[in-house]
């Protein structure tokens, strides 16, 4: 899960990382109160769990009441990379001398935390120049290593001291919360040479959630996603009109790719998991029936330990209970697939021998 900026900053504050004064709100009435409290000038920042907010107009300077009344609703109404505003953060305007980049991330191939730092921050990581990369291991960043990074960034005096302090606090936060990535970009050098975190990105390792009840309050899930998780599915909502269902993340991704190659638009990614049962597949169909934009369902199953007849049964039950009235295009392969095909003969499910045929039929089918 990726936290919102203001949530990441709550954690930064808890760990003593320097921040400008900021307050988050979810409506303009609240916002007006905060505007008074902060005083102009400040910045209005949209809170969405994706990058590229600045370019999309999600960060606006604000000098007075008139600007506030105009810009607050504008920013609130933006959709960035398909994400609507979760909140608005008002943050005091900063007098910046220079922008740095600093992150700690879990290096998958080296199997350890790794620091990336640069004296040229403020742009997306792909464009950050002169990156200083240091492997840390599984423990905290040492004083010595933090100083080495500051030196390589050519930081001096008070700035260097505060940078070392920030890096060590960031490392403590990352390790204690078991984050996959914590990024401060930009980390600013202010006019008085102090260091300040102007933005914050924090990606958790969701598998360690059970050890971090304190992060639960940041969990943000749609009702449907929550239901999916309860049933042991992985569900990602997408904005097309063909629901894609299968067993195994790789197989469902692969189906999504082929559907897109053939001109179809996926409405969701739904992996019913390795241990699918009639009940769980029925549950999956119930979830899909709640997605309004869906015009057809594409099913790609490779029955292994899970029998395809178990899946066929769920479909028959769903038709019987009038749960779905959408066309279903399916390819069932593997254990008991011949029997499953027989069971579904004459039902709403169109059965195809290859996934290719099922996809083409689905693309044509939803156009009708």
């Amino acid at each position, binding site marked *: 899960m*990726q936290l919102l900026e203001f949530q990441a900053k709550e954690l930064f504050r808890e760990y003593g990382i320097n921040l400008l004064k900021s307050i988050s709100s979810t409506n303009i009435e609240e916002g007006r109160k905060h505007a008074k409290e902060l005083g102009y000038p400040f910045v209005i920042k949209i809170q969405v*769990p*994706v*990058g590229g907010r600045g370019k999309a107009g999600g960060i606006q300077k604000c000098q007075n009441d008139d600007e506030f009344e105009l810009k607050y609703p504008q920013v609130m109404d933006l959709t960035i*990379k*398909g994400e609507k505003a979760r909140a608005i953060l008002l943050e005091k305007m900063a007098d910046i001398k220079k922008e740095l980049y600093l992150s700690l991330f*879990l290096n*998958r*191939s080296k*199997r*350890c935390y790794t620091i990336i730092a640069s004296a040229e921050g403020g742009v*997306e*990581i*792909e464009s950050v120049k002169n990156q200083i990369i240091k492997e840390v291991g*599984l423990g905290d960043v040492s004083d010595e290593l933090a100083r080495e990074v500051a030196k390589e960034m050519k930081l001096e005096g008070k700035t260097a001291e505060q940078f070392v302090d920030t890096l060590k606090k960031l490392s403590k936060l990352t390790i204690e919360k*078991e984050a*996959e*990535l914590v990024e401060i970009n930009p980390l600013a050098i202010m006019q008085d040479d102090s260091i300040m975190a102007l933005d914050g990105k924090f*990606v958790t*390792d*969701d*598998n*360690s959630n*059970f*050890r971090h009840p304190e992060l639960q309050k940041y969990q943000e899930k749609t009702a449907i996603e929550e239901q999916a998780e309860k049933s042991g599915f*992985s569900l*990602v909502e*997408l904005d097309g009109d063909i629901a894609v269902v*299968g*067993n*195994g*993340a*790789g*197989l*469902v*991704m*692969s189906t*999504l*790719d*082929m*559907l*897109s*190659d053939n001109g179809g638009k*996926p409405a969701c*990614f739904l*992996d019913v998991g*390795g*241990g699918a049962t009639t009940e769980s597949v029925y549950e999956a169909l119930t979830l899909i029936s709640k997605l309004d934009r869906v015009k057809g369902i594409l099913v790609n199953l*490779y*029955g*292994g*330990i899970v029998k395809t007849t178990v899946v066929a049964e769920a479909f028959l039950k769903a038709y019987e209970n009038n749960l779905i009235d959408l066309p279903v295009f399916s390819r069932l*392969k*593997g*254990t008991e697939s011949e029997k499953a095909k027989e069971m579904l003969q004459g039902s709403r499910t169109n059965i195809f021998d*290859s*996934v*290719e045929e099922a996809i083409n039929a689905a693309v044509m089918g939803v156009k009708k």
Partner: protein
Amino acid sequence: MTDIFGLLRGNPGDPDYKKKGVIVQGITGAYGSLHAKQMIAYGTNIVAGVTPGKGGEKFEGTIPVYNTMQEAVDATNAKISIVFVPAKFFLGAAKDALNAGIKLLVAIPEHVPIRDTMETLELAKQKGAVVIGPNTPGIMIPELIKVGIMPPMPFKAGKIAVLSKSGTLLYEISDALTNSGFGQSITIGIGGDPVNGTRLIDAFEMVKDIPDLDGLVVVGEIGGDSEEILAQRIIDSGFKKPTVAYIAGRAAPKEKRMGHAGAIVMGTYGSAESKVSMFNKANIPVAKRPAEVPVLLAGKMEKSD
């Protein structure tokens, strides 16, 4: 370098040649017992099970169950274990196994915290053991030994090595290979987590020198950079056997986790384009769909003849 065939099959003359003992951790659970039975049916020599508190019981009337891995290993001298415990208990089970002298640990559970995986891998390194997974379907030499949860039908003994992050895609692609006459010498499930006990390059090192290897199939997916690193290793090592790749997740949105904990694109890190372009650089064709894999492999073989 790990002699994976030595571990799984052994050498002619070994008393347990082609019947290496395997211990099942979590054998009395629903999932563990289902797959223990399936492995036995496939011909795997399951010699013991471990479930704390259930020591003294017999699984299926014949296989002894122990409370700890130390007891199980002392009694059987097995070097292989497969873990089915819930993710929360994985670290404990893995330590128990590695400290007892297990040399090949197959970690089935999904949702193991990354820190627990990393701690397991540190200990494995100290002990000179290999970890496959977590979140893996397992490892198998078709028609000889299965230490995993794969269904048997897609696989046939042969001369192609298949390395895969995904379980169902491993089945799907092995099925396509088998139907085109390409049996498999070994299939290794890397797992869908961000941190893998056996990375793609490690698995490559295990299989690249198999004497009668005819080809290699790599089934990757978005997230991380292990495909890129493998492609570079293939270039550097001068490996010349016909190789074909498949990458799932080209159409996945950025910054969304696609089912597997590891399947997430952050910026350009982990993107399908990055992986495809590295494979292309290594002169490895990347199939657009699973069914295309045997076709491309056959093409590669013709050229290398």
